[in-house]
């Protein structure tokens, strides 16, 4: 391969690099740059305002908690489901994975609406569960409602992410464990979980970032009523009453920083492990 071939090859990548710069890198830089601007020049005042505001700190806390809880639920339920799925016939595996793909994209308005029908004030399941005496009342337009809806998405996304990595537990490994008399529990604790640890952590971080960044589903379900970072950003960017674009930019930059740390750490850890 000579340098002329390489130069020609690079030409084929130029359109993508141009689009990635114009519609991914540049907007991100614009947000970070604008977050440092005020009418009088450069300033950190927007960050000071956010960090000293209980309301905005609370938004980060709420987003963080909902994301952490639903990511744990997602990975925790998806691991046994994905593992059982491995024992199923190939056709059924395809069907379940197809639905998981559609399901994890079934976000925003359609999803919120479906859950309002099922768990709204007079939703079918609210009525059924109340009749069975299991719940007194359930308010879907609340933090609890958000956890329920997010969890639905997270489990399906986690099944998609974890299923391929379970291939690492080869029949040979399971048979060797069985030969030395390891119980199922001992097998998972001593062999299965350690082998899967990188993909479990990786999936958890992707789920966490996914939940922290969720806007459409939360907006459709609770409007501005829940105090989530993404909802505050949307409100400050486009709201008529609360509009403050530079504050929105600062909130957005902080959110990106919060998410970049785990994603970068995870990527470097994985690289080192498999290098």
């Amino acid at each position, binding site marked *: *391969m000579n340098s002329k*071939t*390489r130069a*020609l*090859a*690079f030409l*084929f*990548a130029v*359109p*993508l690099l141009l*689009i*990635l710069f114009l*519609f*991914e890198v*540049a*907007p*991100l*830089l*614009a*947000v970070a740059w*604008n977050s440092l601007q005020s009418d009088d020049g450069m300033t950190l005042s927007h960050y000071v305002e956010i960090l000293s505001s209980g309301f905005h700190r609370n938004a980060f806390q709420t987003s963080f908690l909902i994301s952490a809880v639903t990511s744990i639920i997602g990975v925790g339920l998806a691991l046994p*489901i994905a593992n*059982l*799925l491995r*024992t*199923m016939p190939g056709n059924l595996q395809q*069907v*379940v994975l*197809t*639905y998981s*793909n*559609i399901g994890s*994209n*079934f*976000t*925003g*308005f*359609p999803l919120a*609406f*479906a859950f309002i*029908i099922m768990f709204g004030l*007079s939703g*079918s399941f609210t009525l059924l569960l109340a009749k069975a005496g299991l719940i007194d009342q359930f308010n879907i337009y609340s933090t609890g409602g958000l956890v329920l809806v997010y969890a*639905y998405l997270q489990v*399906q996304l986690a099944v998609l992410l974890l299923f391929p990595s379970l291939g690492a537990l080869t029949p040979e490994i399971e048979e060797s464990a069985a030969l030395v008399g390891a119980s199922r529990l001992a097998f998972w604790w001593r062999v299965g979980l350690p082998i899967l640890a990188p993909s479990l952590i990786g999936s958890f971080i992707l789920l966490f970032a996914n939940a922290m*960044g969720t806007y*459409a589903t939360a907006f*459709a379900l609770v409007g501005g009523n829940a105090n989530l970072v993404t909802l505050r*950003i*949307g409100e400050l*960017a*486009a709201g008529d009453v609360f509009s403050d674009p530079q504050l929105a*930019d600062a909130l*957005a*930059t902080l*959110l*990106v920083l919060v*998410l*970049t740390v785990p994603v970068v750490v995870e*990527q470097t850890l994985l690289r080192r492990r498999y290098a």
Partner: protein
Amino acid sequence: MSRTLRKPILGNPAWLIIGVFVVLQLLPVAAVALNAFATDWNGTVLPSGFTTDWALRIFADPRFDQALVHSLVIAFGATVVSALVTVPAILVGHCYLPLLDRWLGALVILPYAVPGVVLALGLLRIYSGQYGIQLNGTPLILIFGYVPLGASFYYVPIKNNLRAITVKDIIEAGYLVGASDLAIMVRVILPSVLRGLAIGLVMNFTLAISEFVYANLLVGGLYPTLQVFMNVLREGSGRLTSVVVTVYFIIVWALSTAVIAALTERKDKK
């Protein structure tokens, strides 16, 4: 096979658990579909009767036709544009330019750490005409804006396909028989990543037709999509919204199933 270590299929609770999982996955869709055809569903577990009135009323609404056309234009547009720019870059990166490949790997992961609402803010800042470029309010901002969001859906499965073949040997063998680089790419490498490409196409289409944040913040009522139309309808009767959601779901489901079925058939033939 370790399957012999497992319990026989009958009496295996695995089937029950997977069955329950599939039912739960489909439950929200079923609820919306029921609601779309319900005469009255208030204070009861199931609707009291069924009707096609709501569906007919939506199909007669010109705003629905408009939103459906807009969504399809954007979904097909974004899928075609993203495939045309992303796939060649992935192929040349993997085969000729390792440094580019590493950069692409990082750039396609970036949207996972940068939520859509953050990128939407930035796009709002840049393409609203302040710098002489007015893309916001037009479908173009969505078609181009969705390329970075969906790039990983091509990158991951296509890289998996590429890792399964020995690209270096194939290229050298190609040189030996006098084939040009372009011919090797188009006739040998490209066919070997068709499965990954198909998965990427479906996932990009699904993304583009499902996306709400960009569609609402950057374009909104100037070129309303199905998602934006649902948001407008939510003030009114839930039945009408349900019909729109059901139509949206049928489009996504039919397409995914068709492509997966085609892929499975290919595999069986081999």
